[in-house]
């Protein structure tokens, strides 16, 4: 069965306060890194999935992203997908 490699990037919606990001920005200033205008923390999920075809893989990963990896109330997600070339 074809193997697909996917990357799901989960990020907080712009309207949602990110205290962890703000604390990290404050620490960056203490480290001496100046000029950071924005710092928001999300999640990066790498995964591999077996599926009969690309359309099925896409559909399953969309379901996973929307129902498990992200909470659409507060988070947006982006999915990128590629097929892994397998040795015969």
């Amino acid at each position, binding site marked *: 069965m074809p193997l697909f490699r996917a990357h799901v990037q989960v990020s907080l919606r712009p309207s949602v306060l990110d*205290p*962890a990001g703000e*604390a*990290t920005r*404050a*620490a960056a200033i*203490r*480290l001496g890194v100046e000029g950071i205008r924005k710092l928001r*923390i999300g999640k990066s999920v790498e995964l591999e999935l077996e599926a009969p075809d690309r359309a099925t893989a896409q559909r399953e990963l969309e379901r996973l992203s929307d129902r498990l990896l992200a909470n659409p109330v507060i988070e947006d997600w982006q999915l990128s997908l590629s097929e892994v070339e397998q040795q015969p």
Partner: protein
Amino acid sequence: MTVGIVVFPGSNCDRDVRWALEGCLQLSTRFLWHEERDLSGIDAVVLPGGFSYGDYLRCGAIARFAPVLEAVRDFAEDGGPVLGICNGFQVLTEMGLLPGALTRNQHLHFICDNTELVVQPQRCVWLQGYGSGQKIQLPIAHGEGRYQCDPAQLEQLDGQGQIVLRYAANPNGSTGDVAGLCNPAGNVLGLMPHPERACDPQLGGTDGRALLASLLGAQVAV
């Protein structure tokens, strides 16, 4: 003799440490707010447990940049005794005062339990009240206490006598059963178990008394 107890936003064992030192061992303490830089008159420093700065990013990652820790780093490099308990241990590794890192427990559970520890052959100033091979009981309470470093580093730490406390039955998947670690000079100790919760007989055990008392030269019955 005054022990400084660092207080970060999110520390929650600072008062336990104060009780253990003042109430149980009759020592004087001073809280050091995270923005303080003045350690004058301080003879030892404790970084207590808790969730400093919410443990955002990684446990101890933000605390590392607290102004008070610049002073603590100088204090440690001058040979001053520094003790990091639980979150304090995580902060010491993020600061680079101790090597390695503490990560999510192997089986994902937050573990709140009594554990048996074996004191290793060592010359850490905080552990001189214990004998080599002595078994002691201390409580643990952590979700991210699995010690990690690469095998070569573990071997080096072992060879230099820096692994000072090991779990008798590894609860969290720590590499090398590491529960506590000291720096090569022996004045900086980090450990996941909570000695301050094993000082008052009413809490069910007093095996932590000798740890908090040892560097102070106090003679304490364990």
